[in-house]
């Protein structure tokens, strides 16, 4: 289901089209290249791997620095969020102009000899019951944002979660045995006991989890293929399964 599997092109392209990621020419050059020296910018960052139901740490894992330790660019987040919200707009607001308003098209008064202003149409904008001048009409508000900025937005959002200690990596979400809201509530209250809102991200779509979280306003569930900056920022904490995190890393690292 996840988008990263869709990116595993081998299965989707005709057999003759599937090819290694590196062209032979690049492979040749890569074999000559020496190993890149370890700099602070290539070192991974670390995090605890925790148990979902108790929050107790199991081990220490390493995360890609370019994904979880990227410089925090507020402006990029702003651009992505504005772009997302633009695209979310329904664009159905509508008003009636002078051509759309119901009523006669008869000339309101004779042209001359009245000693008053000329009246061509009774539905002109300055009349009571007239049309709206330059009013809104249904339209598409969506805008474009370069793909690279979109991906950078995801990296920055994830890095912001990490930098603010709002990223919780768990080994598995299977600790939730039943689709009961009460049980999820208990886990969140005991293990993740603060008032922060929580976004849970599972590797595979989890009907149990979605059912349990459906009525919890502080808790959201997001599929891996639905990941987006706006949802990440709407919630304080991000609880993510290790496998989902690995797939994200593979997709976003550079």
């Amino acid at each position, binding site marked *: 289901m996840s*988008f990263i599997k*869709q*990116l595993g*092109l081998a299965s*989707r*392209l*005709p057999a*003759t*089209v599937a*090819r290694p990621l590196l*062209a*032979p*020419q*690049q492979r*040749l050059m890569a074999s000559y290249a020496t190993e890149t020296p370890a700099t*602070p910018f290539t*070192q*991974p*960052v*670390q*995090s*605890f791997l*925790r148990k979902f139901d*108790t*929050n*107790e*740490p199991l*081990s*220490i894992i390493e995360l890609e*620095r370019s994904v979880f*330790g990227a410089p*925090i660019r*507020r*402006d990029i*987040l*702003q*651009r992505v*969020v504005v772009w997302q919200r633009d695209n979310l707009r329904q664009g159905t607001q509508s008003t009636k102009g002078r051509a759309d308003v119901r009523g006669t098209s008869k000339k309101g008064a004779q042209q001359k000899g009245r000693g008053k202003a000329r009246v061509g149409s009774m539905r002109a904008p300055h009349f009571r019951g007239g049309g709206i001048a330059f009013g809104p009409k249904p339209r598409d508000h969506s805008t474009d944002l370069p*793909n690279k900025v*979109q*991906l950078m937005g995801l990296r920055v959002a994830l890095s*912001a979660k*990490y*930098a*603010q*200690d709002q990223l919780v990596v768990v080994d598995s979400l299977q600790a939730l045995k039943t689709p009961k809201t009460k049980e999820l509530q208990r886990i969140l209250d*005991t*293990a*993740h*006991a603060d008032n922060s809102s929580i976004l849970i991200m599972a590797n595979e779509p989890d009907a149990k989890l979605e059912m349990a979280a459906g009525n919890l306003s502080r808790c959201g569930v997001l599929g891996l*293929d639905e990941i987006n900056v*706006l949802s990440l*920022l*709407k919630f*304080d904490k991000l609880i993510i399964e290790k496998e989902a995190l690995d797939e994200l890393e593979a997709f976003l690292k550079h």
Partner: protein
Amino acid sequence: MLAQFAKLSLQRTTLRANTASVQSIRLFSGNGNIVPPSQPIDLGNLADNPGAVTERLRLGRGPGYGKGKTAGRGHKGQKARSGNGPPRPWFEGGQTPLVKRMPKRGFVNQHAKKYQPVNLERLQHWIQEGRLDSTGITMADLLDSRCIHKIEDGVKLLADGAEEFNVPVHIEVSRASQKAIAAIEKAGGSVTCRYYNALGLRVVTRPEKWGFRSLPKFAEPVKVKDKEWYSDPKNRGYLADPAAIEAAKAEAKAL
């Protein structure tokens, strides 16, 4: 030392299982240079860089704005009127321009396909230099190795250098000439001609452009002529019956 701390804190926290608050190891991770931002990052604290967005000029909206009366166009004349741009390159001040004085000639076929030619000598040179892997060459590989510099509507394999061609190569292209097919098969390789429309070529060359979305399907040829061409075993088309292709190969070998 940092590793030690991490280990210690892990031990300590494991001992205190079920206690919710466990210190983050972020500060002890890597070079320890990841610190939380001074202002929290949430939807209430986002802003673009100062100066990143220029406000639109509001011309002709009254004296208070400074661009009211003549709206920056000065007084009267051709340049003050609407609808006048700078003169275009062919404009000769009102005199009948050259492009209008000369009669029209010929025509451009809008439906013609422009195939990038690849000759066998160039293909062989690329393989011998190690820039192409001869076991399975696609048009994307040709492009990546700069054997061709652009794919317009596809690639056509041509037979320059067929006499000296001696590398067994398995290749898939849009079209191939009869002589090129014969030379490649004589050297122990194979050719498949496959139809790609513009979208299909883009999928093959730039699959990463689809990002989160699933890849589109590959289109079959629509035109009757294309269908016939790709169904012809003589052309090693991908729609042709494999048995017929084998027969055609055997026939060529016998000659």
